[in-house]
């Protein structure tokens, strides 16, 4: 089957890119999404802070996504849910988990990012249960309705970790502290103010976890200061990395270390007709900036298809 434009991922980047390409005159578009609903990670980001620049008001993640989802439906842009992209080739053949093969005129990569795994951390001790990445804990709490634990230490002070410190506190957990190995938090100042300071959760800088205690379940951690802190849950918020496993398959060039995509000014990757937008390109601080970039990618893809 042929498709003018295949957009991979239906998060903020994929939705805005598809809408933008449509508005530039492209009609034969397909968005492919592996989850069972549109909106991507925004669905679990139930806190406010989205859309200040795009809409001039503060929305929660699901509300921000809803505006783009409504637009996609209104325009009648085609999408497939519960569908994984298994492979992309250099000549833009996209293989889906259903077995369907699409010959795309152009592709926009919009797979977003994932969290750096705990394997990247060098912590001694056993590996009991009760250790989650902040994003996994967010999904468990906000989508699946499962409380990860009661007594929490957060390792790393990325924004998702800060947001989860507040979220878990609101639901009755005791968040004992956030420890950050660097001398400055990687999170936004506003999140330190409204997620930690509001609830008197200490942020320990220049500090890390050196040992995890517990056999079946986490019972505590030892900090680099030597202090022992009891807890049943550890959240890891040590950064995000572009989700580029798929991009590699068709030969998209990545920056070593960061996993960022190397692309032109108009967001075309090294592979002819394959564009990128949002966190798969590089991790953005703000969804508003993701949207802005996605609009540009949609335009570029449209120009490419028209030529």
């Amino acid at each position, binding site marked *: 089957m042929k498709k003018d434009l295949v957009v991979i991922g239906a998060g903020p980047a994929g939705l805005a890119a598809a809408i933008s390409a449509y508005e530039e005159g492209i009609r034969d578009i397909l968005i492919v999404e592996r989850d069972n609903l549109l909106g991507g990670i925004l669905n679990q980001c*139930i806190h406010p802070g989205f859309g200040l620049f795009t809409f001039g008001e503060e929305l929660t993640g*699901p509300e921000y996504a809803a505006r783009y989802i409504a637009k996609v439906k209104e325009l009648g842009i085609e999408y497939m849910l519960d569908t994984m992209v298994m492979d992309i080739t250099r000549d833009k053949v996209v293989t889906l988990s259903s077995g369907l093969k699409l010959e795309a005129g152009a592709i926009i990569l919009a797979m977003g990012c994932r969290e750096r795994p705990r394997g990247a951390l060098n912590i001694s001790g056993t590996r009991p249960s009760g250790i989650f990445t902040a994003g996994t804990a967010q999904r468990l709490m*906000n989508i*699946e*309705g499962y409380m990860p634990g009661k007594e929490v230490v957060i390792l790393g002070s990325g924004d998702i970790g800060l947001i989860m410190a507040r979220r878990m506190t*609101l639901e009755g957990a005791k968040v004992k502290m956030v420890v950050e190995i660097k001398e400055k938090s990687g999170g936004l100042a506003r999140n330190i103010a409204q997620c930690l300071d509001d609830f008197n959760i200490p942020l320990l800088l220049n500090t890390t976890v050196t040992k995890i205690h517990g056999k079946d379940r986490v019972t505590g951690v030892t900090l680099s200061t030597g202090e022992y802190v009891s807890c049943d849950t550890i959240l890891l918020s040590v950064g995000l990395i572009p989700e580029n496993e798929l991009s590699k398959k068709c030969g998209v060039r990545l920056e070593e270390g960061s996993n960022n995509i190397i692309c032109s000014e108009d967001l075309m990757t090294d592979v002819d007709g394959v564009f990128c937008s949002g966190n798969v390109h590089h991790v953005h601080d703000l969804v508003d900036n993701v949207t802005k970039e996605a609009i540009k990618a949609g335009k570029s893809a449209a120009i490419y298809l028209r030529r």
Partner: protein
Amino acid sequence: MEKTYTCINCPLGCQVKAVISEGKVISLSGNTCEKGEKYVVKEVERPSRLVTSTVKVIGGRGPLVSVRTREEIPKEHIFDVMDEINKVVLKAPVGLGDVIIKDIFGTDVISTCEMEEK
């Protein structure tokens, strides 16, 4: 008294220095825009926050509906609002913007997502 506040109104997070006397702001510096001024005056005189959470739902695509207070509520009542939110059980379908709790601390709790029936 002098105190520094982080403006939470936008991602810039300006550090705003306030001179406070008898619970009132006398002078301000460090804010980039006037929203920072408004924020700090409010933070000193009657701090308030938006509360976001989830509510259980029966018969939906998923087990939870995300919700928020329509407007900010007094900061000291965050946990009171949470208590009320946690008492609610909804039945699908729930529409985006549906009122979940009416009239709580001068505002409503509304749904921030759509929840179709299973």
